[in-house]
């Protein structure tokens, strides 16, 4: 065996591996490219900063949606979930794509027609309440923070792998770089960058898959289909006799005992149940339609039909990656089947699979850089959404209505820095897998923002009182679920801990929280004073015409 490959394979078992020159150069080149694009297309005023001057085409916006969406959770986390819990991981694939259908048919065009900048803007106007606007802004910030935590974890893992440094230092360095870039560029730069990032993300993700399929003798021309036989082989096992010439980079044959638990639904070996599969898929789907940074993407297209078509393009671009991610889990399962490989960090399984598959170190480096790009593109969008909520919805609309545009931009930037510091501090605690951490943000959005948008757009009877009551109900479920989750992580047992933790799991509490918030909203709205006629008139004449 080639010595260089042995070295690479050894590194696969140790995240504390040494500094990798090639991957580091690729990463730095990509980051410099991002910053340059950010500078060239930087925000010139508040309109640029929040909504990119409403000048992005539908294909470009679709690409930006995909890039914004394809975070570390998609790039690294999904394969990790499938690697660890098999078919259960597919609930995340379905949840993170199926939600776009809801988003499109229920909201995209209407949101654009409503013509606001941020999610809190919509909530404040539709429910004619400054308090709700402020609460909406705070929720948007909390969601952005929860979402960013997983991304910073992913950035930390990849920086750690590439630079060969400690995880804590890697998170701090990675967080600083993404913060600097977001501050320089704002959303116009971010949107342009997102299109470039999409190309880098998808190319870096697909190249190793073509090679893996080719090397291990599967149908490589379309790896998204070719890996199907890898899944079946994992289920039935691969005898040594069938893989005499096929080795991983540690010298183990491409063979395994049967592992049907990798593909069979809610397998007892994974500890996951049917209810959890359904609950996660449902929560992620409605969360998708309630995420402020996703909703905000519809404000940057010129008209409502562009908003609709950008969802189609965005979803298609997203699916290219989502069709491919399970392949990494399947190859990873077999390539790491030998006990000598040891327990790998699941969130880095995409990179380890490429390493174990004997792929050239520079291509593996490109893959890792793609992971960083995925996290960067999402984090920048989230920080802009969060800082917009802070500056536009809290500072200008509530605290200082006479603020000059210059002060508004400054407030947005201060908000970005504060958020980045909070996220870094939480990310260092490594509370769960990347995908799971991100799922918390989805459930939070599903319990709070989704019901307000759904009823706000489709039922003029939903009024301020109903919105407040619904928000309290959804918020309460969220607080209970997260309290039990955090208590569990701290080793504290609360009353009925096991029961609550199962039925209101931190990754899927929206399965109960969202319907409850909607029902409470409807009941209270029916019992209280009707929505003002000007709001209803606006809905009919502007949003639904």
């Amino acid at each position: 065996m080639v010595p260089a490959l042995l070295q690479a394979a050894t590194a696969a078992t140790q995240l504390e591996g040494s500094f990798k020159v090639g991957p580091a150069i690729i990463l730095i080149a990509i980051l410099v490219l991002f910053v340059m694009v950010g500078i060239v297309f930087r925000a010139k005023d508040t309109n640029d900063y929040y909504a990119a001057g409403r000048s992005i085409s539908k294909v470009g916006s679709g690409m930006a949606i995909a890039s914004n969406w394809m975070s570390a959770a998609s790039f690294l986390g999904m394969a990790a979930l499938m690697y660890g819990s098999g078919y259960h991981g597919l609930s995340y694939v379905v949840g993170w794509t199926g939600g776009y259908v809801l988003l499109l048919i229920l909201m995209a065009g209407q949101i654009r027609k409503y013509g606001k900048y941020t999610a809190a803007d919509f909530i404040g106007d539709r429910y004619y309440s400054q308090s709700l606007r402020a609460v909406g802004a705070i929720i948007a910030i909390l969601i952005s923070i929860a979402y960013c935590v997983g991304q910073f974890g992913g950035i930390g893992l990849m920086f750690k792998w590439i630079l060969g440094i400690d995880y804590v230092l890697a998170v701090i360095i990675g967080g600083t770089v993404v913060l600097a870039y977001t501050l320089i560029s704002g959303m116009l730069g971010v949107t342009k960058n997102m299109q470039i990032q999409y190309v880098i993300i998808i190319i870096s993700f697909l190249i190793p898959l073509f090679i893996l399929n080719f090397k291990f003798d599967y149908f490589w021309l379309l790896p998204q289909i070719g890996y199907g036989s890898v899944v079946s082989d994992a289920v039935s096992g691969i005898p040594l006799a069938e893989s005499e010439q096929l080795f991983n980079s540690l010298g183990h044959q491409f063979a395994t005992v049967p592992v049907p638990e990798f593909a069979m639904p809610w397998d007892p070996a994974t500890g996951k149940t049917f209810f959890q599969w359904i609950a996660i898929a449902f929560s992620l789907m409605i969360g998708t339609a309630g995420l402020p940074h996703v909703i905000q993407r519809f404000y940057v297209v010129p008209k409502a039909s562009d908003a609709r078509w950008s969802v189609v393009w965005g979803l298609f671009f997203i699916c290219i990656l989502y069709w491919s991610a399970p392949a990494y889990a399947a190859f990873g399962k077999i390539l790491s089947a030998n006990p000598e490989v040891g327990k790998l960090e699941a969130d880095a399984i995409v990179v380890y699979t490429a390493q174990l598959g004997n792929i050239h170190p520079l291509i593996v480096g490109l893959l890792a850089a793609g992971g960083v790009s995925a996290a960067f593109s999402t984090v920048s969008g989230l920080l802009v959404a969060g800082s917009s909520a802070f500056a536009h919805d809290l500072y200008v609309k509530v605290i200082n209505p006479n603020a000059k545009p210059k002060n508004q931009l400054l407030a947005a930037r201060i908000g970005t820095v504060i958020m980045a510091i909070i996220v870094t501090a939480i990310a260092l605690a490594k509370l769960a897998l990347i995908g799971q951490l991100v799922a918390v943000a989805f459930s939070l959005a599903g319990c709070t923002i989704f019901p307000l948008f759904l009823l706000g757009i489709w039922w003029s009877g939903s009024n301020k009182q109903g919105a407040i009551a619904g928000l309290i109900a959804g918020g309460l479920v969220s607080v209970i679920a997260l309290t039990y989750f955090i208590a569990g992580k701290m080793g504290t047992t609360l009353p009925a801990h096991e029961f609550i933790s199962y039925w209101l799991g931190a990754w899927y509490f929206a399965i109960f929280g969202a319907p409850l918030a909607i029902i409470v909203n409807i009941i209270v709205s029916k019992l209280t004073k009707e929505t003002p006629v000007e709001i209803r008139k606006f809905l009919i004449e502007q949003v639904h015409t």
Partner: protein
Amino acid sequence: MKDSENGYHISLFKPTTERARFNRNLIFWLASIWFIAIFGFQIALRVLQKPTPEPAFLVFENVWENVSNGSASTPEYQEFGQSVLSVLGKIAITDDEKTALSNALSWSLYSTYPDSLQSGLVSNISEFESLKEGITNITDENYVLEKTKLAKTLGPKLGLSELDVRTTILPLEVTAVNIEGMTETTRSQLPGIMKKYLVHNQSFLTDARFLGFPFHYFYTAFFLLVLFVGLCLVYCIRSDRRNEILGIKD
């Protein structure tokens, strides 16, 4: 006139204009397809599933009683060891489960040896364990050599051929610790561990193959995503056409 009577009301369920009616019907159709395709299929999987054991579990069940009361024959110990090794080859097992499984495997191997050769087996395994602890690189030449030698020695004792993938992992899973007997913890945990890892929820939907995939896996991981894109495409095309007919400009 009361506000509720002035006509300015929007409800998805009670559309008041032609466009709203069209929109409602389109949304209901697409949402129904979406819902049934996702959740209907998973419910079907759940309803149709049957706990299906791997062959290794059937072997385990056949010999467990004799093995646990110490009256097993050498072939039974071999079959028992093989079935335990089938679980040890799965990387998802926890550390506690691994300890119990390794103990069961090591003891079954020990039991296949005549009394006079058992101490030799223990020292062979101990030496390899010491060597394993001392290496920094798993490609160390001496380590690989000793591992291969041990696999060749132990594999046939457990009735495994050289081409059986379990032979290659056998040296890595046996341990000299508690090799002379199965601990009480192992005895109590083992049936549960074997059932957990060797019995799966299967049906014709999981057993059928499509484009190389188990069918249910293809459906969920690939087809559903195609369907989502298709539903979005249909919505956009139909909405644009309807707007054109009604002369509505965005």
